[in-house]
């Protein structure tokens, strides 16, 4: 765990401690379970986003994809009677295809990631709204899918299964990002795509793969969100979720210039954001301040991290200078 991640962890613990002192109910198992459920949902989104941000890209269509695929999933299983073990992989494939399209436009047609995914943000939401004619997609009263609901919204030994899914995904993606050849390529491309190309890396394919991974993870989390809210109004569902995902990654030390950031960081970033939302409710802070609290904490977090970095660098330099001077005197 890097110094950066450690700092974030301490921040999370300190905020948690303060909240627990003010309102001890914060530590009730049920509250922790509720919050970790949302950490699971948003964490999966944020990991997907992280794969794209590492390459120096950005995926702004996340929220709209969550709406579109959520609508489709609910519609497939609730209205069209598709079996969920068919619908689920189908939705994941659709997510992958969306990622593929974005990656293709970005690498082959050389469009900017911001532009491509901004258009995606607009288009997918439009399509979702058109699909339901601006209505809501939801389950009828009493419509149940016991296995699916257990997997998505259920708990095992009190731990939400969505959180367990996040942990599994995090472990796998940690290995992929930090230990695998593919992960190294991602970082290299994020740092300097041109140089990576000159080293014989098929940068186009690697970048496309990153967008596909992001698409699949987004699709997965779209299913989780759909099963959590059980009802989706495509005009508003998932709005701003891309900002949550990006914010989690940035808090976790990712640079939007690419090539920087750790998986543990993005998970901790998600945890902090959800902890803040929980805090607003538990401490009875007006809900209108929800956004302001989130923005303020991100800003402070990033600022402290940045200033801490500057401070450490300066100390290192001074140390080097002093050691050098001592060495020179000894000669």
């Amino acid at each position, binding site marked *: 765990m890097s110094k950066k991640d450690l700092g974030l962890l301490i921040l999370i613990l300190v905020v948690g401690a303060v909240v627990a002192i003010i*309102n001890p*109910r*914060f530590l*009730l198992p*049920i*509250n922790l379970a*509720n919050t970790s459920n*949302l950490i699971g*949902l948003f964490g999966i989104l944020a990991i997907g986003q992280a794969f794209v941000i590492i390459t120096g890209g950005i995926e702004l269509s996340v929220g709209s994809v969550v709406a579109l695929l959520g609508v489709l999933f609910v519609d497939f299983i609730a209205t069209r009677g598709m079996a969920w073990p068919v619908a689920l992989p189908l939705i994941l494939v659709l997510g992958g295809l969306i990622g593929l399209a974005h990656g293709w436009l970005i690498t082959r047609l050389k469009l900017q990631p911001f532009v491509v995914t901004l258009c995606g943000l607009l288009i997918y939401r439009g399509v979702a*709204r058109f699909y339901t004619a*601006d*209505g*809501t997609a*939801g*389950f*009828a*009263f*009493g419509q149940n899918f016991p296995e699916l609901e257990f997997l998505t*919204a259920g708990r095992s030994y009190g731990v939400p299964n969505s959180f367990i899914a996040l942990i599994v995904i995090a472990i796998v993606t940690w290995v992929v990002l930090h230990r695998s050849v593919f992960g190294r390529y991602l970082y290299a491309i994020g740092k300097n795509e041109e140089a990576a190309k000159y080293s014989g890396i098929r940068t186009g394919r690697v970048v496309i793969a990153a967008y596909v991974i992001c698409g699949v993870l987004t699709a997965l989390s779209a299913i989780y*969100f759909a099963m*959590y*809210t*059980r*009802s*989706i*109004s*495509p*005009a*508003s*569902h998932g*709005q*701003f979720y891309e900002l949550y995902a990006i914010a989690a990654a940035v808090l976790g030390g990712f640079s939007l210039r690419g090539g920087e950031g750790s998986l543990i960081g993005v998970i901790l970033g998600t945890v902090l954001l959800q902890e803040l*939302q*929980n805090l607003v*409710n*538990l401490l*009875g802070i007006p*809900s*209108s301040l929800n956004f302001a609290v989130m923005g303020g904490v991100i800003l402070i977090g990033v600022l402290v991290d940045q200033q801490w970095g500057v401070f450490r660098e300066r100390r290192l330099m001074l140390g080097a200078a002093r050691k050098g001077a001592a060495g020179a005197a000894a000669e």
Partner: protein
Amino acid sequence: RAQDKPTLAFVVNGASDFWKAAEAGVKKAQAELPDYDLQLKYPEQSSVAIQQRLMDDLVTAGVKAIMVSAVDPKTSTDGLNKIASETALFTTDSDAPQTKRVAYIGSSNIDAGKQAAEIAKKAMPDGGKCLGFVGLLGADNAKERIEGMKEGLAGTKIELIDVRGDDIDQARAKKNVEDALVASPDVTCMVGFYSYNTPRIYEALRDAGKLGQITVVGFDDDPITLGGVKEGTVAATVVQQPFEWAYQGMKLMAAYLKGDKSGVPADGLIIVPTKIIGKDDVDAYAANLKTMAGK
């Protein structure tokens, strides 16, 4: 094409299932008004600027009369007057009495809030603490419903202690309920002020195993809400009748355009009262909904 028949438009305040019933009402009116072209329009976002623009464009496109559920009627006087000066303007859902609108057709949100209080009083004769959930705390309809409910509860042992907003984010709506269960264990009643809030309350309670232990007061007729009412886990729900607004409204506008102003009362207010749907009425109501939607 559109030009040969006069067009009447019903402009809603945002995309929501609530307006699906109004769509059905428009459809029924269309069948009875073959000489008119009836449209129902959703602005792409719930914002004054976007709705204003939509209406400007409709006027440009030659619409003869508009019935609007204004996003923010209180302060949009000038914008609405501008439309009223160019075409016949009617309001629905929430009124803008200071404007030059011809008439208002809809219900009273204050009265709806009072009806919610009735439900609570009936379900909790011994009093209790209520927590409300709503999409936009600042919206007029939310404020009026809350106000009405508080009025209705005045002097009883029931208290509405807080209302949490979620900015129409359903995930947050559900989490708000979950958090409330944690933060305020003494709450005995929950009120869903927007149509989607009641189903989210229902689900959160079900997940927490507290269905039936906490009184749920609902608004509107989401299928889950009606299911809950039938099951007995939702005390009752206050329903508006957007179908009637649209159906009656369209016919009123058509008549008005023909010069028949008899349908417009002196005070310009046509109130379609809200109704309480309890366990006993729910089946009939649901059946009626189905026939209205033509399913």
